[in-house]
């Protein structure tokens, strides 16, 4: 977090302190509702015979909650390295679409900063970044202030979950399993841009639910994203014609 975060061409940019404060406010609910899941990852890692340091390393290196849950579900000894990698790729393939969508908003970052920053493009970070970009300009200082508390909480709470053992067995009891849905709904409400938004969202919901019924695994996310993008492409063509 240094002055160099800012575009040198821009004299009137808001100072990074304001960016960081706004980002911290925005990311706080996501950080709070991620805690039980990080604890649970640590707990499951312990159940699967991983050491505390291994649990910490998993969250620090992989930093992808849903992939980590599935990996711990598949876990066996000796470790099935190849199938863990392939499963992780399929579950995280949605990030390819997310990276494409965020590109226009971070293209002004220096390449040497954009690539390290993309390591931290978890779902919530991406969604909050897109919301910020939609309301103005997405600066690296804002992104960094989203990432730092989110990442540190994820890694430290995984470790704590391993140490504490049986702390939280059933997040559903407290409704925590709904927290991610609620977060995404609130972000969607902010992304609403009138009737034009409707087409892609309906297409996405229909495709996601259909594929979710028909195919096991995370394919429904890709199907919904692709269906929504297709409707968006048609809207783009129509703009061209009109």
């Amino acid at each position, binding site marked *: 977090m240094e002055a160099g975060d800012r575009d040198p061409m821009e004299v009137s940019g808001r100072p990074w302190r304001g960016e960081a404060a706004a980002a911290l406010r925005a990311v706080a*609910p996501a950080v709070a509702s991620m805690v039980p899941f990080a604890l649970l990852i640590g707990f499951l890692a312990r159940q699967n015979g991983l*050491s*505390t*340091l*291994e649990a910490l*390393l*998993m969250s620090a*290196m*992989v930093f*992808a909650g849903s*992939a980590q849950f599935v*990996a711990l579900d598949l876990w066996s000894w000796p*470790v*099935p*390295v*190849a199938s863990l*990698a*392939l499963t992780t*790729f399929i579950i*995280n393939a949605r990030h*390819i679409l*997310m*990276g*494409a969508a965020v590109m*226009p908003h971070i293209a002004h970052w220096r390449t040497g900063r954009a690539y390290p920053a*993309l390591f931290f493009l978890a779902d919530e970070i991406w*969604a909050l970044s*897109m919301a910020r970009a939609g309301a103005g300009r997405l600066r690296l200082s804002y992104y960094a202030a989203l990432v730092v508390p989110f990442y540190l909480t994820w890694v430290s709470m995984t470790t704590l979950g391993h140490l504490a053992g049986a702390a939280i067995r059933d997040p559903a009891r407290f*409704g*925590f399993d*709904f*927290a*991610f*849905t*609620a*977060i*995404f*709904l*609130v972000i969607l*409400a*902010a992304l609403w841009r009138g009737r034009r938004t409707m087409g*892609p*969202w309906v297409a*996405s*919901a229909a495709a*996601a*639910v259909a594929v979710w*019924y028909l195919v096991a695994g995370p394919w*429904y*996310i890709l199907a*919904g994203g692709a*269906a*929504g993008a297709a*409707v*968006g492409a*048609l*809207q*783009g*063509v129509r*703009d061209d014609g009109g």
Partner: protein
Amino acid sequence: MAVDPLVLAAFAAMAGATYFTRIAGFWLVRRIRLSRPLSGALAAMPGAILVALIAPTVLTTGPAESGAAIVTVALAWRLPSLAAIAGGVASVVVLRALTG
């Protein structure tokens, strides 16, 4: 506090797979010109992916989850996001208790 080399290899492979997905879209879209349909698709994608992520939970789990989704969106209309999220989570607990 041991770290098994094979465990470390598995984490490295998972980390590599994840990092690839996080940079691939950025890398690709940077190198091609954005046509109208493509920029339309990119504009639609954030909402579409979020909708896809939550659609099965909201539409197929049961009345408690669908109802709580409506409550969350209604709260998001007027309240700050943290309050809307807390209200949504509280409403799912209440609705699950009511719908059993």
